[in-house]
């Protein structure tokens, strides 16, 4: 497609030149330039047009970050959040996949539980936080639970949809070749729904982080959520921004990890993915 487009453009010299292809290096340079100019603007505006109290400034934020890094406290909080996110993500994904496959292959149970699952799904899961604090205490467990619940529903819904979407002809084909029910599930249904599961896992990564951070904001003594909450309550805007940057970087890193895993595990690229 691209080749034929360039060819046709080359064949018609009186036409305007084809849109320039930007090399990755050039684009990266532009992106860095944009980031730097935004930071400069921020620094310029702060204290002149907008009170430093509200938006802080990049230098203060950087200083705060450096301070937390050098005394090591940032890593303690980061580790708490990463731990809760990862554990919540794992528990939620495993639960969601099991639930999705199970309900997907048992039409009766699937339909039986349908209204209840819909109701639970419609419920803002964050509202469960007080309950989790009550059940699991102020420690890491309540954050894990919140992250897990958020992930579970997303992964479940995707897995369920994926299992329902499996080509019936493939299932029939396997059954005609004497596949047992377990074989149909492990060798046809799950591989076929894999791309849906991955889509679910991928979109739920940021939610795992949201769950963990929210849990920490509600009641905790460590974690990035706790830190952002604490900084806010101390009117430390620079601190809040510093934590926000760390959370954003963390989210980006997690997304990259998921993409890497998907690339490794799924040699066969699904149509529409």
């Amino acid at each position, binding site marked *: 497609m691209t080749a034929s487009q360039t060819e046709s453009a080359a064949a018609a010299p009186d036409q305007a030149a084809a849109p320039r292809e930007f090399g990755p290096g050039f684009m990266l340079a532009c992106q860095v330039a944009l980031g730097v100019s935004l930071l400069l603007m921020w620094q310029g505006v702060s204290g002149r047009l907008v009170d430093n109290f509200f938006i802080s400034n990049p230098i203060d934020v950087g200083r705060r970050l450096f301070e937390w890094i050098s005394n090591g406290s940032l890593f303690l909080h980061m580790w708490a959040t990463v731990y809760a996110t990862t554990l919540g993500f794992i528990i939620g994904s495993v639960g969601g996949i099991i639930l999705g496959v199970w309900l997907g292959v048992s039409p009766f149970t699937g339909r039986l539980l349908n209204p209840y699952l819909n109701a639970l799904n419609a419920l803002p899961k964050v509202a469960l936080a007080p309950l989790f604090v009550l059940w699991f205490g102020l420690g890491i467990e309540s954050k894990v639970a919140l992250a897990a619940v958020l992930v579970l529903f997303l992964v479940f819904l995707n897995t369920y949809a994926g299992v329902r979407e499996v080509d019936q002809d493939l299932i029939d084909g396997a059954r005609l070749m004497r596949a047992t029910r377990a074989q149909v599930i492990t*060798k046809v249904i799950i591989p076929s729904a*894999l791309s849906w599961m991955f889509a679910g896992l991928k979109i739920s990564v940021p939610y795992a982080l949201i769950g963990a951070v929210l849990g920490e904001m509600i009641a905790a003594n460590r974690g990035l959520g706790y830190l952002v909450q604490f900084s806010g309550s101390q009117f430390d805007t620079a601190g809040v921004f510093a934590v926000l940057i760390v959370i954003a970087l963390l989210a980006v890193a997690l997304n990259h990890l998921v993409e890497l895993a998907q690339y490794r595990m799924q040699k066969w690229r699904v149509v529409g993915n």
Partner: protein
Amino acid sequence: MINLQHISKTFRKQTETVEAVRDINLTIERKEIVAIIGPSGCGKSTLLNMIAGLYPPSSGSVVYKGKHVTDVNTDVGYMTQKDNLLPWRTVLENIAFPLELAGVARSERAARAAEVIKHVGLDGFEHRYAHELSGGMRKRACLARMMLYGSETALLDEPFAALDAQLKLAMHDLLMRLAAETEQTVVLVTHDLMEAVTLADRVLVCTRRPATIALEHRIDLKRPRDVLNVRFTNEFKDHYDLLWERLRVEYHEDRV
């Protein structure tokens, strides 16, 4: 060997009811090649699905080797126009799939699969995925898989409909060779009369929906047949004309 006794099938979709098959009686002998021909969407595929036991007839019964078919019939191999190769598996893994299901060890699977792969002329493509193959190669893979599964009956539902004329001939040749070697019973559903006469011992003409059998005709062309040239003989033409005469009525009525 396959015995259809007064089978009918009606589908209900909410308020709509569609009668796909009406009162078909049919006996297919072992090692026979039977072609069922009729207008598109007349219920031929429904018939095969019932022989495969994928769903039961609304009335009547399917008897396979003296036993009523009540669940999936694992003695048959089923091949449809849409080749049901598993897209996440390579050709080799797809062809060896029935052995894998049966719990055959990996090394033996690979050895036996390699043999049939060579037989259908797919050697060199073992590690490709289905979407990397041409339509004809996918059909070959399906035939190889069916061979390896060792089904005694092959149900073919317009398997070569999507192929071009030359490729079709090559596939006809391959199919006839394999069927003769493995002594398979073949039930072929098609809307291609040329294909039906070339391959079959017996051709059944179906009416448009609901499918009933309008005409049964024996093709006594000697075997082995030369798929390329058999169509130019006078006997072939006689069979063809006779069947087309009846088939034309169905197509004509279809248009009204």
